[in-house]
């Protein structure tokens, strides 16, 4: 299915976006955490994530009158965020000196945020290691694979929504996701 057809599918299955756009303040309140989370996971820099999320809502605010509701508001915002993250990746090489002052996140601490669940200490340790392995594996993925992986397994988006947000076909999303899962599982297996 091509992206246009994907957008059409989403438009028929999601809430009416026009209504939400009328109150932009409310829209920011609802979608900020989600956009910020995706951007933060992608760039792994708190300052950059704040700036890019602001840019995302600023762009959406400017283009709000042109938004025709072909996709859900969430997909539309994630689409803008995906583009911003891609551009950030391109420009970062030119701004290497900024890295020395940026508040880069310690990526090794991701498993510290595992929710407390009824698990034996051994099981907890195992899950912790696996989560660390997934987090480390996402660094080695290609940009597209990483984006698709985060949208599917962190943002819990459907394949057609991912296709609409990334501008890829549904088939291409499946291919990128399959490769990403293979790489992540390879990393997970290396721990055993």
């Amino acid at each position: 299915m091509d992206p246009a057809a994907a957008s059409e599918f989403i438009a028929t299955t999601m809430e009416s976006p026009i209504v939400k756009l009328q109150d932009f303040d409310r829209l920011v309140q609802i979608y900020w955490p989600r956009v910020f989370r995706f951007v933060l996971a992608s760039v792994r820099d708190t300052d950059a994530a704040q700036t890019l999320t602001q840019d995302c809502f600023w762009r959406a605010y400017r283009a709000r009158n042109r938004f025709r509701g072909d996709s859900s508001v969430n997909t539309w915002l994630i689409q803008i965020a995906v583009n911003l993250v891609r551009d950030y990746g391109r420009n970062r090489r030119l701004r290497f000196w900024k890295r020395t002052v940026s508040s880069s996140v310690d990526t090794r601490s991701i498993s510290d945020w595992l929710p407390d669940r009824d698990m034996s200490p051994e099981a907890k340790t195992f899950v912790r290691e696996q989560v660390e392995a997934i987090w480390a594996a996402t660094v080695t993925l290609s940009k597209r694979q990483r984006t698709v992986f985060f949208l599917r397994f962190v943002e819990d988006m459907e394949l057609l929504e991912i296709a609409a947000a990334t501008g890829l076909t549904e088939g291409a999303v499946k291919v990128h996701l399959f490769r990403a899962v293979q790489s992540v599982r390879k990393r997970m297996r290396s721990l055993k």
Partner: protein
Amino acid sequence: MTNHLSSEQISRLLAGDGTSAEEQHAGSCAECERELSRLQEILLAFSHSVQHWAEALGSTCVPDTEFLRDRSSARRLGPLRWALVAAAVIILIVVPLYKNAGHRYREADSSEDAVLLEQVNAHLSRTVASPIEPFMQLLSDTSADKVGDR
């Protein structure tokens, strides 16, 4: 399908790209189902970890939407600001050029004046009218010859 799902098939199922036969097998084979569930649980734990981590780093601290209004007004002022900068640059370039041109014009004027004054002086210092000057020259030459003969 008699064998268990291969690693690739399980990855394909996780990616949402499994065939109906693979899905059917995963639903009926306890071992493959267990492997799939295990991976899905770890991926879910990963998702929760990222969500909690992002919350801790401020995903829930939604900023005041004033930034949108501020940027809008800055954007409205943007073209005006650029117009002022352009005007300042033009003034900085044009004023010295204008000054320079005036100076050169005055210099040219004064040299023209000097030439004119020289011409007037020459005219006033003449003893006879300019058409008669060649005759006067001839006369002075003739008288000088006569003095020489004597």
